[in-house]
């Protein structure tokens, strides 16, 4: 412990134990515990307690209080537990009789204070922290404390109940792993005493007629199998298997969800292999017996396993696909399409009845769709899904939802009435549709699919959130369509679809709802990103009104939309002005106009988003080499820097620094210096000539004023970025050996101003107005001064200073202790206040 903290700690302890104080706020106590957690982990010896006797005194003082504050008591329990986590300190606290008074029968657990959840929570947390060694285990088990933990599993506080369950798992693991003398066998299992108590409790609870007891045990086992994968857990399985099996045969037990969770965790545990037939038989019958809603999570979990018996996988697949199969059958004429499943293996009655009920239909479909999306998001699917039938089924769902499909079958008719305008199902189905675009083999349906997607994009009934998802799905399928038309040369179909998409987009860009305009612009940007190399796409886009409308949205009243318009316009430029063969366009679309417009936004827009979007687009253009020759680029960068260096939004200024960084790298690269080893170097140019030239360019572009000013910015990320750039530049201009010693700098006029700069940088954010264009003789455009500054300023030191968070001092333990001491006696009003 730092000595400053040791000095403060006694006063802190005294303040906390003083019942007259109204009490520190909870965050202080939490942070104090965070600090002790680190301290106790670093040093397991007893010296922490010996060197700071105030800690044990504090615990004793709190115990002596007739009515301790609940938060302080809870804190004390947790602190004592942390301290007792090492065996040495445990013994020390035992000798002082503190642990037994805190956690034993005479402690808070038999007083009225126990009524308060924070005290119970502190008790469980304290015991959990302490539970790192056998003496602690015996302390609790022998003192009857384990019964308290059993009871706390059913605590009215969710937090306490969950913590108690976790604690039992931890104790069971600790007991088995530290106290077992010989390997455990399934035949004659000799569990250590503490483990035996817990396992007996689990078994008793599983056989209990009380549903809550059964649930607690299932939860405990779920936590155990979820966190512990050692072989002994399999031995445990043999002791509980018959109880779990009985849950499936006895209809009275209502713990299907919890049992499904447990089976899922077990299925994922590496201790169960494909050969464990008894376990997999249980999983299979659970999949069969549970309702589709209960079995769904288990089914999808099983399907994500790479190793699992085939029949279990088939059963899981049946559970997952059955709702989709029913939809397909309900939507189509008899014998029109084969379903997803063979009717001989699955009985659709339950699913059909769930789908035809108003209260369960949407829920079941949303769950199934979410599970399908989960599966489809895996790169390597352990199972083959029938993609075409799935797509057909999805299309049917989407048609049911927008009322464009009302089949004759009674089930289809019922479902269509339930699903119409159901946003939840629409969103989930569109998510799966987007995920399905990554899978091959659905080509034949693509035209019909776009009919449906376009209907969604066009319909005024489509809600903005659904529309956003429809855009996402459409963009993904358009990419597929392009790939498809490249391979089969069916350009006409593609052009037709693209024209329809842009027609819809035109309307949507004019929507009165900002969410829709914004999603439309985002959609356009995505399309350009992925499809800008396709001729058909470019032609369709440029012959539509979309580019003009997008430019108009640069003046949208909503700043989010303006920012998205900036990004879209920036991307559009790649297929207009920056394209190798720019298309012939009207006067209003010229490059200078657009750049001027964006620069105007950068300098005048009242909000940060559009300005940030502009600077990021400029950087993107620069990266892609769109800003012209070096000279043009220099002017461009210089102009942009002048606009952004005084921006009120630090993220815009940070964007400016990024632009500077790209520019520096490119300039250095273009002039053929070693930073870029593959750049062609004209043989006539010498290395120092390059250096001179690039330094002059940087000075002319007024980079250095911006960079040095940023070092003193009150917003830290700017200082860090500027420092990174300057370190990069220095390594470029100075090989390490040639760095000048800092003491000699004041000899020349340039040296004098660099010395001033050094002093100013030391003041950091407290520096007085930082002169960018000459101050104290400092000329940031003078190559000689800049060269000297780069060579003499200790950027590494600055860098490590800037790299710390701006409130690291206030967040330090010493500062925390000071704050606790300082709050003693402050008025209550300050503490009680809030927004």
């Amino acid at each position: 412990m730092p000595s400053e903290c040791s000095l403060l700690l006694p006063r802190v302890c005294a303040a906390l134990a003083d019942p007259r104080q109204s009490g520190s706020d909870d965050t202080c106590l939490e942070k104090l515990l965070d600090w002790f957690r680190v301290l106790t982990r670093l040093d397991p010896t007893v010296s922490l307690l010996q060197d700071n006797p105030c800690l044990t005194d504090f615990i004793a003082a709190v115990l002596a209080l007739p009515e301790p504050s609940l938060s302080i008591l809870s804190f004390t329990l947790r602190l004592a537990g942390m301290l007792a986590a090492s065996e040495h300190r445990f013994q020390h606290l035992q000798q002082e009789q503190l642990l037994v008074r805190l956690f034993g029968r005479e402690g808070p657990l038999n007083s009225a204070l126990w009524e308060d959840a924070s005290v119970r929570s502190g008790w469980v947390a304290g015991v959990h922290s302490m539970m790192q060694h056998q003496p602690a285990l015996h302390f609790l088990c022998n003192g009857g404390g384990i019964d308290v933990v059993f009871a706390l599993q059913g605590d009215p506080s969710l937090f306490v109940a969950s913590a108690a369950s976790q604690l039992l798992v931890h104790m069971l693991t600790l007991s088995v792993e530290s106290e077992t003398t010989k390997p455990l066998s399934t035949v004659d299992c000799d569990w250590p005493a503490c483990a035996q108590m817990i396992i007996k409790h689990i078994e008793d609870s599983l056989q209990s007629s009380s549903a809550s007891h059964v649930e607690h045990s299932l939860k405990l086992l779920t936590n155990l199998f979820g966190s512990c994968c050692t072989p002994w857990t399999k031995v445990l399985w043999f002791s509980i298997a018959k109880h779990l099996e009985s849950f499936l045969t006895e209809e009275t037990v209502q713990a299907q969800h919890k049992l499904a969770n447990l089976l899922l965790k077990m299925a994922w545990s590496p201790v169960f292999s494909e050969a464990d037939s008894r376990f997999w038989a249980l999983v299979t019958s659970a999949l069969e017996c549970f309702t589709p809603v209960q079995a769904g999570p288990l089914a999808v979990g099983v399907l994500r396993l790479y190793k699992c018996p085939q029949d279990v996988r088939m059963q899981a697949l049946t559970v997952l696909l059955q709702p989709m199969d029913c939809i397909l059958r309900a939507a189509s004429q008899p014998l029109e399409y084969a379903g997803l499943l063979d009717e001989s293996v699955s009985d659709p009655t339950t699913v059909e009845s769930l789908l035809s009920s108003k209260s369960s239909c949407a829920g079941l479909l949303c769950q199934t769709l979410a599970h399908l999306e989960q599966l489809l998001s895996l790169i390597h699917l352990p199972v083959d899904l029938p993609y075409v039938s799935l797509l057909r089924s999805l299309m049917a769902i989407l048609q049911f939802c927008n009322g464009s499909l009302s089949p004759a079958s009674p089930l289809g008719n019922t479902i269509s009435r339930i699903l119409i305008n159901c946003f939840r199902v629409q969103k989930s189905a569109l998510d799966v549709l987007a995920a399905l675009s990554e899978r091959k083999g659905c080509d034949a349906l693509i035209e019909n699919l776009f009919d449906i997607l376009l209907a969604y994009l066009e319909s005024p009934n489509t809600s903005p959130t659904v529309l956003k998802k429809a855009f996402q799905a459409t963009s993904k399928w358009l990419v597929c369509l392009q790939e498809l038309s490249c391979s089969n040369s069916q350009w006409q179909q593609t052009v037709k679809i693209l024209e329809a998409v842009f027609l819809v987009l035109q309307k949507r860009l004019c929507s009165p709802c900002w969410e829709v305009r914004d999603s439309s612009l985002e959609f356009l940007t995505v399309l350009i990103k992925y499809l800008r190399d396709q001729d058909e796409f470019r032609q369709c886009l440029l012959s539509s009104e979309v580019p003009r409308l997008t430019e108009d949205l640069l003046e949208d009243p909503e700043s989010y939309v303006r920012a998205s318009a900036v990004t879209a316009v920036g991307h559009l430029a790649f297929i207009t002005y920056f394209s190798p063969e720019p298309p012939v366009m009207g006067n209003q679309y010229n490059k200078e106009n657009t750049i001027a417009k964006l620069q105007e936004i950068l300098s005048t827009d009242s909000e940060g988003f559009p300005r940030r979007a502009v600077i990021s687009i400029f950087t993107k253009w620069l990266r892609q080499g769109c800003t012209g020759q070096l000279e043009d680029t220099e002017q461009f960068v210089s102009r942009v820097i002048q606009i952004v260096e005084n921006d009120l939004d630090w993220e815009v200024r940070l964007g400016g620094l990024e632009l500077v960084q790209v520019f520096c790298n490119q300039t250095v690269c273009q002039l053929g210096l070693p930073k870029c080893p593959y750049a062609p170097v004209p043989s006539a140019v010498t290395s120092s000539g390059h250096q001179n030239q690039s330094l002059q360019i940087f000075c002319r572009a007024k980079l250095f004023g911006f960079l040095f000013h940023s070092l003193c910015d009150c917003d830290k990320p700017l200082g860090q970025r500027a420092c990174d750039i300057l370190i990069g530049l220095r390594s470029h201009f100075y090989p390490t050996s040639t760095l000048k010693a800092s003491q000699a700098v004041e000899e020349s006029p340039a040296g004098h101003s660099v010395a001033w700069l050094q002093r100013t940088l030391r003041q950091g954010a407290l520096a007085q107005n930082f002169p960018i264009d000459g101050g104290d003789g400092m000329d940031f455009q003078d190559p000689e001064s800049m060269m000297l500054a780069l060579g003499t300023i200790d950027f590494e030191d600055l860098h490590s200073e800037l790299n710390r968070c701006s409130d690291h001092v206030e967040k330090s333990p010493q500062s925390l202790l000071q704050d606790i001491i300082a709050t003693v006696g402050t008025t209550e009003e300050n503490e009680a206040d809030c927004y």
Partner: protein
Amino acid sequence: MPEIKVTPLGAGQDVGRSCILVSIAGKNVMLDCGMHMGYNDDRRFPDFSYITQNGRLTDFLDCVIISHFHLDHCGALPYFSEMVGYDGPIYMTHPTKAICPILLEDYRKITVDKKGETNFFTSQMIKDCMKKVVAVHLHQTVQVDEELEIKAYYAGHVLGAAMFQIKVGCESVVYTGDYNMTPDRHLGAAWVDKCRPDLLITESTYATTIRDSKRCRERDFLKKVHETVERGGKVLIPVFALGRAQELCILLETFWERMNLKAPIYFSTGLTEKANHYYKLFITWTNQKIRKTFVQRNMFEFKHIKAFDRAFADNPGPMVVFATPGMLHAGQSLQIFRKWAGNEKNMVIMPGYCVQGTVGHKILSGQRKLEMEGRQILEVKMQVEYMSFSAHADAKGIMQLIRQAEPRNVLLVHGEAKKMEFLKQKIEQEFHVSCYMPANGETTTIFTNPSIPVDISLGLLKRETAIGLLPDAKKPKLMHGTLIMKDNSFRLVSPEQALKELGLAEHQLRFTCRVHIQDPRKEHETVLRVYNHLKGVLKDYSVQHLPDGSITVESILIQATAHSEDQGTKVLLVSWTYQDEELGSYLTALLKKGLPPSTS
């Protein structure tokens, strides 16, 4: 029995961050989704893993409702919707939807600015989250789905703050969020219908306080600013971009105008324009005075308040600067503070509370020598003032709201346990309703007794009135019929009509009972004895001896057979319909007593 369950994940016996789960008639609603600014790790957000152990959040929660734009009520929303994965509907009022992203963005910038922060949402996430929000109008009933509806009421407190009524069928809950029962300079007082909810969930920040008038605090504030400026000092007011800043701007603007002061007032965030734009846009949400004067002069168009440039901080002479962030923990406000702290002529006024770990917290707790970066010590010589302008209902206001709404139960949140305990007793005494105050993670269950409206068919009603008295609205009346539950509606119809509507065939249910009688005579003689006995006892009933040897009493049928093993025992099989249940039971009891001795 129907029940409403409430589990606070935040605001249960604390004022950290509000997040309350309500389960009503099978619907699950999250009320507020706040952030705790006292932490810089995951503890700043509620632990959402407790919402559901099974399945996805989106499937479990039917909607999220945000009461107002303060971060302790909405700060975790982008995290919840974009990082935890909730994809369902979110409701808030129009002003809250407009202002909420400004505050979230402001706080995100401060958080990112500080460095060392993990797991925080981005600008894009804030935007994506706001796109999912459905904005509601005051008093507009919004149908979340076919059963769940919500309605917003004016809450005062801050622009756009609302209380929400959540209703499923005839069960309802009102959640107040933060509210203020007394109008202030720019907002009106909270108001709610006499909607008699099953449960009122109310904040209780000032549960034991009767606050002095806000006017006094405002006067005090102006006096202090004025004195400092007069003696040539600078005043720093650290604020968050929106909310209190605008309130204080109005205050200073009016004062400057009245006193004809010339010292400049600056606002540093660059967000003033947008903030003021929203205050103008949502003028209907402000109080009557502002609305009235709006025609002549818009209160939010400031003549004296100008945008701040970083270079101004070093200018000589007096000035007043509003700078973000509000707790002096990073950025501009901290920079200005460090520059001005050494001069005793200057003043910093903290208009809101500060969490531990900030410079604001330090100076408010009286620390005057602050360690700064690089082991520098900053001596704070400037005056430090704390002025709470938070607009919450005090104890009187809370009682007033309960009187207004007339709830059947009250549940306290957003307050300190001790103060809640006091208020709880007061509420229970005065209103004779149960009052609860669950801690975070604790579930309170309230049993409701909903009256379920049922339509009665005209035929049944006519039949009932034909046999009895005319229905009287004040007297409960027992009615017999068949209840049909179909398409979310209940109808009581006559059994015949129910059979007809549902296309079902009628089945007769008969109860049977065997009674053993010792009688050595022939069967037909035993039957005759029984017949005579019954005829003698049941004089008012129609007792018949049928040709097939059986006896009927009304619908009850009695047949006699000899016992297969003992001819001296006769078995009487008695059967009756449901309608004659009483008579059937009486008859069997009678027969079990045996027959009277034979007279023949």
